[in-house]
């Protein structure tokens, strides 16, 4: 238990420079901890002070930061998620990604709050953090291995004692695939924005952690009150009480189709036959492939899908997934309704270390280019990339991970692929990040969320407007309100920032928003973290991320949807819906205003002062 002035934190930062092999233990600035809390916020601030946002994301000058939160180390529900922040090689702006599993909690137990890794090694290495010892070790023996093999080999080779956890990349990260992921516990994945390629560029294969350090809790009674409230609410709501366990996240497939928001054929339309949708539904998954549900660390929800599927050439394969996003992006977005094919491709992406959302979006883009004759069988090495071809979906995973043949071009992501044939508008991305499984034309709020998400099109950083479409199709916050969307999405983004700063799961948000967290964080730290103060942290982090992106070269023009969403309507709630350029501009301007940014999307000096955001240290 450390003597750091704020309980809940150890007060220690571990900074590793892989170029020089330097390992530094630095004190955590208590003011940063209070202002940015942990996870995404603290990580973003430390990254901003560590690198030049204009740097080459695959050069040694990029860094990644993983920050824990004051709740990690307690028994707060789902509080075990690690959160990684870096400059994204896919988007060129800030990248943030997190995952469940147990690694995040195991990292905090090493006695550090924050890990910073910068520089680049010349040969494959791993970082080993154990009680009283931090080392950079050679990792040539696991280079080339899958995420599963790497996890198993490195965990088995550890000294006995407290549980050892491994965070690692697969071959896709090693080969600098721009949509490469980082994985822990085999199938828990930091997927979005290409963190695996950042690790690969540093020749970093894995970070292995082991420790038993505990944190202090200042006011156990107050913490317990928040905890009781949270657990009570999670038992009241069907989604957190039972539905996510029974149906998995793919339970949403049929419902999203009901509200005409389920994308199809590279987002050309949202039209599906009901019987096709049923073939990829959560209910069908439960009936046909599910072996058992599973849970991340400290999670009472239990949405994990442990599944078994017949192999394409006989035999059986086991693994995890598919989740909703994977099912939709690899499924109907590629015009594929073959759940077995999606599941096998999902398994391979997990093993080779690829983000399944960007993978599905990139394959769909390639299929459209193939249909238009902009990619030919000559380009693909004879592979038929027609929409609907599940075999191609599976075959492309290793081609991408090892950058073989057409896979080398797909490894650049859909934007660079489409731009290479002169048609960047056919990439369904914002800031070069592939759009997830909710069509933005079916909710203006979701559209604005994708446009203004700091990381590019992401339902988690941009705001999950699906909740509004369901809960919400209210008169107060309708799906198609230009006027209400900016404030609604700002508020949703801030709730998301809070969850990301605390290292907790988004699905807690179906049961409650900030109040139980405010009590728990105040209880642990002994400081006043009211709901209003947490809201201020949300505003501060959003504005800091904006500063990072502006210095990385992003402009207001980048806060836009691909032309398809303005030009080609879908039918929702009985009418044609599109998000015109004028409507995009109007919502954007209102959003900038409620964020305290100027008409060009730049934070004003007044906002920076009010939020106490200091200039970059580096």
């Amino acid at each position, binding site marked *: 238990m450390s003597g750091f002035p704020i309980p809940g934190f150890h007060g220690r930062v571990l900074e590793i420079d892989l170029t020089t092999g330097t390992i530094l233990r630095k004190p955590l600035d208590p003011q940063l901890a209070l202002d940015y809390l942990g996870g995404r916020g603290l990580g973003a601030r430390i990254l901003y002070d560590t690198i030049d946002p204009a740097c080459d994301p695959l050069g040694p000058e990029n860094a990644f930061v993983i920050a824990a939160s004051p709740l990690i180390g307690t028994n707060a529900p789902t509080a075990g998620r690690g959160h990684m922040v870096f400059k994204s090689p896919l988007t060129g702006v800030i990248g943030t990604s997190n995952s469940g599993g147990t690694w995040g909690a195991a990292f905090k137990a090493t006695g550090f709050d924050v890990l910073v890794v910068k520089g680049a090694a010349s040969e494959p290495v791993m970082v080993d953090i154990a009680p009283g010892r931090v080392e950079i070790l050679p990792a040539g023996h696991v280079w080339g291995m899958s995420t599963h093999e790497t996890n198993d080999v490195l965990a088995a080779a550890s000294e006995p004692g407290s549980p050892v956890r491994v965070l690692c990349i697969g071959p896709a990260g090693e080969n600098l695939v721009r949509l490469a992921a980082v994985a822990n516990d085999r199938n828990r994945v930091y997927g979005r924005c290409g963190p695996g390629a950042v690790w690969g560029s540093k020749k970093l294969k894995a970070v292995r952690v082991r420790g038993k350090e505990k944190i202090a809790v200042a006011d156990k009674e107050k913490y317990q009150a928040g905890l009781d409230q949270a657990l009570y609410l999670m038992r009241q*709501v*069907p*989604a957190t009480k*039972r*539905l*996510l366990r*029974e*149906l*998995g*996240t*793919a*339970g*949403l497939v*049929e*419902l999203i189709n*009901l*509200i*005409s928001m389920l994308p199809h054929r590279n987002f050309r339309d949202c039209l599906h036959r009901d019987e096709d949708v049923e073939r990829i539904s959560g*209910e069908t998954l439960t009936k046909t492939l599910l072996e058992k549900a599973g849970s991340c660390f400290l999670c009472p929800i239990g*949405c994990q899908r442990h599944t078994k599927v017949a192999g394409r050439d006989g035999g059986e394969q086991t693994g995890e997934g598919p*989740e*909703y*996003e994977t099912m939709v992006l690899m499924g109907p977005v590629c015009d594929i309704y073959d759940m077995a094919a999606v599941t096998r491709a999902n398994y391979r992406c997990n093993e080779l270390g690829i983000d399944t959302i960007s993978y599905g979006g990139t394959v769909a883009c390639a299929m459209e280019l193939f249909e238009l004759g902009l990619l030919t069988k000559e380009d693909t090495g004879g592979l038929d990339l027609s929409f609907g071809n599940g075999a191609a979906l599976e075959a492309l995973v290793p081609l991408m991970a090892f950058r073989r043949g057409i896979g080398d071009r797909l490894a650049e992501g859909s934007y660079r692929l489409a731009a290479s044939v002169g048609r960047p508008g056919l990439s369904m991305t914002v800031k070069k990040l592939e759009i*997830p*499984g*909710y069509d933005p034309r079916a909710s203006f709020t979701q559209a604005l969320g994708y446009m203004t998400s700091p990381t590019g099109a992401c*339902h*988690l950083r941009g705001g*999950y407007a*699906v*909740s509004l*479409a*369901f*809960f*919400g*199709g*209210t*008169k107060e916050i*309708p*799906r198609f309100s230009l006027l209400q969307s900016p404030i609604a999405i700002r508020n949703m983004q801030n709730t998301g920032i809070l969850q990301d700063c605390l290292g907790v799961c*988004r*699905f807690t*948000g*179906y049961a409650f928003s900030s109040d139980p967290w405010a009590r728990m964080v105040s209880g642990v730290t002994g400081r006043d973290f009211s709901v209003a103060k947490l809201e201020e942290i949300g505003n501060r982090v959003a504005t800091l991320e904006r500063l990072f992106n502006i210095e990385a070269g992003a402009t207001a023009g980048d806060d836009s949807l691909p032309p398809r969403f303005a030009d080609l309507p879908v039918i*929702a*709630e*009985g009418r044609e819906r599109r998000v015109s350029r004028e409507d995009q501009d109007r919502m954007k301007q209102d959003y900038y205003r409620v964020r305290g940014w100027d008409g060009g999307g730049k934070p004003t000096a007044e906002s920076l002062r009010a939020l106490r955001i200091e200039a970059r240290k580096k």
Partner: protein
Amino acid sequence: MIIKTKFFAYFRDVFDGRERDVDIGDGRTVRDALDVLCDSPGRRAEIFAGTDLKPHLVIMVNGIHIQSLHGLETELKAGDTLTVFPFLGGG
């Protein structure tokens, strides 16, 4: 008057099926239709809390959330589709 009904997730168990046509007699509104559908205390308890809808469930008429229409008092026409599902997130 006959309307179409569709159920999702656990409402398929509650109402014994995925979809069916239902005769709501002289009923005119969503509330009337739900009264006909909830023909047992068990079914009623899954839909209503007193005279209001339970939280965390979504009811749509022809694909539009009833809160965007007139709530339980939304009027129905013969052949309309009434959809019942629990609020479920994911992603």
